[in-house]
C-alpha cells in the first residue's frame, strides 16, 4: 500500500497553523505534542501508521466550522476521525494534515419516540443510541461489530453495516438527516425527521463518502421498535456447497432472516477453541440463521428453515430454546476476529461482496490462492447479503509476510469483482483499497465520482489520498471536451 506523501509546503507552516487554530479553540482541545499525537497515529488498519501534523478536538459545531474555515483559508489538509475503528484506513492521519476528531461532540440531542427518530452528535457511539431508547422497547438497527466503540458519525461516513442489514439495511437506509459543515465552514442541513429529499438526494451520497465531502456535526437516525422475539438456528453442513444451497433456498422460499451468517472450518475451529459455543467441529460450514418478529411467526419460520436444512443433509441442526442459547450461538461468530487472533500472530480482514450463489466457487479459488501464497485463511461470511470476510493469517515479524498477505487480499478482492461482486461491502475503500478501484470502475466512472467531490470540496482538502487512485484537479475535470461537427446519428429512429 502506498502511503500519501506529505506536502512539505504545508508542514513548513505548522507553527502558524497551530497559532490560528488555538485562537479558534480557546477552551483547549489542540494536540501538538509528539507523544500525545502518537495516540492518533493509526486506525483499525493497524499495520499502517503516520503521525498527524496536528490533532484538533473541537467541542461544538461552531469550532468545527472555525477549524475548517482556517484550514480552507490556509490551504491545509484535514482528516476527519470518529473513534478510529476504520478497517480500511479511512482515518489514517497524514503528516501534512489536521486530524479533526469528533469524539467530544458526544451528546444525544433529541429522542423523539412519536416520530421514531433520534438526533445525536457524531461522537456518540452506535450502541449508545440503542441504550438511550431501549427502556421504551426501541433500538437502532445497524450493528457493526465495533458498535461499542464506533461512532455514529463514523457510521455515516462509512455507511456501516452489521449482521442484521439483510433485513434492516445499512446506515444509509436508517439515516434521516444530517447537519454538516463544508470545507469552507458553511453549515448545511440535509433531511430531517421526514423521508426523502425535496431536491437532489445529497444525504444519500454524503452517507458512505468516507469523510471526503464534509464534516457531519449532527445525525438523525430512525429507531425501530424491537421485535417481540428472536430465535436462532445453528446448522452444520458437510460441505460449503450444501450450506450455500441452503442459503439460496431459504431466500428462494421467501424468507428474509434477520441474520444469516456462515463460517468455514478454520473459522469454526478458531471460534470454538476461543469461546466454547458448542459449534460442531466436524462441519465444513456452519450457518447461523436468526429469525425475528412476532413469536408465532418466528416459530413457524424456524420450522420452515429447519425443514430446508434437513432436506439438504445438515449434519447439525439446533434451534435456540431461550435467549441465553441464542446468545451462545452468536458468541462464537461475534468473537471470530479475536479468536483468529489467538491462532495467528496477525490477521488481515478482507471485505468483498459477491453474488451469494458464487460462494462455493469463490471459496475454492480462495483456497487455491491460500496454497499459492502459503498463507492460511479463515472465512466468515454475511451469507444473507453476500458479504465475505476472509481473514488472511500471517506473522508481521516474518520478513515479507505482510506484503504477501496484502497481495493475497488484493487477489481475493479481484476475485470478488470477477464473480460479479464488489471490492468492499461495509468497511470502505479508504487507503487500503484505493489502488484497486480501477478493477471495478473505468476512468470515466471515477471522473464522474470525483466531480461530486469537486462540488463539495474543490481544493481537495478533505481526507485527500483516500478512495481515489488518481487525483485530477477539479478545473481539469470541469472542462468539457467538445467534439463538434459529428454526423448527427443518422441511424437513429426518430418520430
Amino acid at each position, binding site marked *: 500500500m502506498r502511503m500519501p506523501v506529505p506536502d512539505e509546503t504545508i508542514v513548513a507552516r505548522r507553527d502558524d497553523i497551530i497559532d490560528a487554530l488555538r485562537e479558534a479553540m480557546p477552551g483547549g482541545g489542540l494536540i501538538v505534542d509528539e507523544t500525545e499525537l502518537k495516540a492518533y497515529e493509526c486506525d483499525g488498519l493497524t499495520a499502517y501508521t503516520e503521525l498527524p501534523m496536528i490533532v484538533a478536538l473541537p467541542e461544538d459545531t461552531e469550532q468545527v466550522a472555525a477549524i475548517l474555515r482556517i484550514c480552507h483559508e490556509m490551504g491545509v489538509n484535514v482528516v476527519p476521525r470518529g473513534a478510529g475503528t476504520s478497517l480500511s484506513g479511512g482515518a489514517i492521519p497524514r503528516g501534512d494534515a489536521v486530524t479533526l476528531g469528533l469524539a467530544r461532540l458526544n451528546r444525544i440531542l433529541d429522542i*423523539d419516540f412519536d*416520530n421514531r*427518530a433520534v438526533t445525536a452528535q457524531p461522537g456518540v457511539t452506535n450502541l449508545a443510541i440503542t441504550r438511550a431508547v431501549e427502556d421504551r*422497547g426501541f433500538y437502532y438497527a445497524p450493528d457493526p461489530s465495533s458498535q461499542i466503540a464506533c461512532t455514529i458519525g463514523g457510521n455515516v461516513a462509512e*455507511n456501516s453495516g452489521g449482521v442484521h*442489514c*439483510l433485513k434492516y*439495511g*445499512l446506515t*444509509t437506509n436508517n439515516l434521516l438527516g444530517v447537519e454538516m459543515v463544508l470545507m469552507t465552514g458553511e453549515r448545511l442541513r*440535509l433531511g*430531517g*425527521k*421526514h*423521508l*426523502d429529499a*425535496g*431536491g*437532489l*438526494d*445529497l444525504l*444519500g*451520497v454524503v452517507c*458512505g463518502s468516507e469523510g471526503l465531502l464534509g464534516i457531519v456535526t449532527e445525525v438523525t437516525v430512525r429507531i425501530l*421498535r424491537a421485535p417481540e422475539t428472536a430465535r436462532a438456528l445453528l446448522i452444520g453442513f458437510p460441505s460449503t456447497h450444501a450450506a450455500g444451497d441452503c442459503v*439460496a433456498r431459504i431466500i*428462494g422460499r*421467501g424468507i428474509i432472516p434477520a441474520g444469516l451468517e456462515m463460517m468455514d472450518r478454520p473459522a469454526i475451529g478458531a471460534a470454538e477453541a476461543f469461546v466454547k459455543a458448542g459449534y460442531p467441529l466436524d462441519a465444513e460450514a456452519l450457518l447461523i440463521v436468526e429469525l425475528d*418478529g*412476532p413469536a408465532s*411467526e418466528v416459530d*413457524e*419460520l424456524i420450522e420452515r428453515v429447519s425443514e430446508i436444512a434437513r432436506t439438504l443433509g445438515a449434519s447439525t441442526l439446533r434451534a435456540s430454546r431461550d435467549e441465553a442459547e441464542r446468545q451462545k450461538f452468536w458468541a462464537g461468530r461475534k468473537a471470530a476476529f479475536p479468536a483468529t487472533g489467538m491462532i495467528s500472530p496477525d490477521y488481515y480482514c478482507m471485505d468483498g*461482496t459477491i*453474488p451469494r*450463489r458464487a460462494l462455493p466457487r469463490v471459496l475454492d479459488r480462495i483456497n487455491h490462492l491460500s496454497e499459492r501464497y502459503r498463507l492460511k485463511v479463515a472465512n466468515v461470511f454475511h451469507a444473507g447479503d*453476500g458479504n465475505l470476510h476472509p481473514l488472511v493469517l500471517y506473522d508481521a515479524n516474518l520478513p515479507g509476510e505482510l506484503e504477501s498477505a496484502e497481495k493475497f487480499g488484493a487477489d481475493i478482492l479481484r476475485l470478488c469483482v470477477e464473480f*460479479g461482486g*464488489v*471490492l468492499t*461491502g461495509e468497511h470502505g475503500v479508504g487507503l487500503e*483499497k484505493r489502488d484497486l*478501484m480501477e478493477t471495478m470502475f473505468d476512468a*470515466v466512472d*471515477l471522473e*464522474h*465520482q470525483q466531480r*461530486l467531490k469537486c*462540488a463539495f470540496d474543490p481544493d481537495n482538502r478533505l481526507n485527500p489520498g483516500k478512495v481515489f487512485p488518481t487525483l485530477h484537479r477539479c478545473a481539469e475535470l*470541469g472542462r*468539457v*471536451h*467538445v*467534439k463538434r461537427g*459529428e454526423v448527427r*446519428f443518422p441511424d*437513429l*429512429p*426518430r*418520430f
Partner: protein
Amino acid sequence: MSEILRPQTADQAREVLAWAAAEEKPVDLRGAGSKHRLGHPVAADIVLETAGLSGISLYEPEELVLTAGAGTPLAEIVATLDAHGQGLAFEPPDLGPLLGAPPDHATLGGVVSCNLAGPRRPTAGAVRDHVLGFHAVSGRGEAFKSGGRVVKNVTGFDLSKLVCGAFGTLGLLTRITVKVLPKPERAVTVTLTGLDMDAAGRAMTRALGSPLAVSGAAHLPDGDPAGGPPLTALRLEGPPSSVAARCQGLGALLSDLGAVGALDEAESADLWTRLRDVAPFVGGDGPLWRISLPPAAGPAVAEAIRARAGGRFLLDWGGGLIWAALPEATDAHAATVRGALAPHGGHATLVRASESQRRAVPVFEPPPGPLAELTRRVRQGFDPKGILNPGRMG
C-alpha cells in the same frame, strides 16, 4: 414541434447526448411520459425517449436481484417478479391517471428518476433504498456506471442514491439494477372508523411504535368511498398465522380509540393500491400537493392547510405523507402549504397543477441558499451545459 428520438442502444443514447452537449441543445428525457407533467415544464426541441432501451437482462430470484433497461415497462417487471412470488418492496405508484396519462405506462427509469414510493415507504424504504447500481449517460455525453448488483456495497460514492429523484437532470439512465424481495404471503388491514385527524394520528403513531410490524398506516378523512365516515387503515403482512395473531393484537392495542374493523385480503389489496396511486384524487383539476414531513406533525399540518385553503386530504406513511387536493388559487396555495410545513421541516411538491402554475410556482421545495448553491455545483459536474431536462427541478 419537437423531434422525438428513440435510441435503440445505450451507445446511440450516448451519441445523441454527446451531440447535444457539443451543440448545447437542451433535451427532454422521457420514459413513456406517464409523469411528464410532474415538475416544471422543460423547454427543448428534442425529446429523447427510452422505449428502445427496454428488456430484463438479468433476473435471479434467489439472489433477489433484477437488471433491466431504463425503458422497460414497469408492468413487465412487476409481472415477471410476480411469477416468482417476488415484487418491488417500495410499491411504485402508478401516477399516470393522476397526471392525465393512461394507466400502466410507467417505465423503470421513470420510477427511479422520480424516486416515487408507495405506502410501504416508512418500513421498506424508497426507490433509492432498492437501486443497487446503474448505467447512465451524463450531460457530458459520456457513459458511466456506479454501484453493482449486490446488496452490500460501499465501493466509491453512492451515486445510485443521487440519481434517484434527480428527474433526469444528472444523466439519462440506461440500465438499472434493483433489489427485489419476496411478496408477503398474506396482507390484511385493520380499520378504525370515525376518528378525527388528531385521533387518527395517535392511532397510527401507536401502531407504528408497536412490535406488530405494521407495513402501512393511512388515514382517509373523507372516508372510503368518499362521503363516508373517516377511515384509518393499518396493514399487516406476513405468514398467515402471524398475520392472524397480529391482527388480534392490533385490535386490542387500538380498541380504546374507536370502532375496530378489518378488511379481507381482496379489500385490503384494493385499498392499498388505490392509496398508492392516489386514486381518490384522480380526475380532479385543482392543485395537488405531496407533502413529506415528520409523521407526528401530519394531522396538525393537514388541519392548518384545511383551515386556510379548504380542500381534501389523504394521510399516508403514518402521517409522514400528506396528499392535499386544494381548490384553485393563483399560487396553487404554495404560501399556505409551505408556511404550514415550515415549523416542522419537510418538503412539499406541487404534483399536479396547470402548466402556467408550474412555470410560476416552485414545484419542488426551494432549498435554502447554501444548499441551492451546492446543488447547482453538483448538477454542473454531471451536466455542465445544462442540456438534461433543464429547469425541470427548478
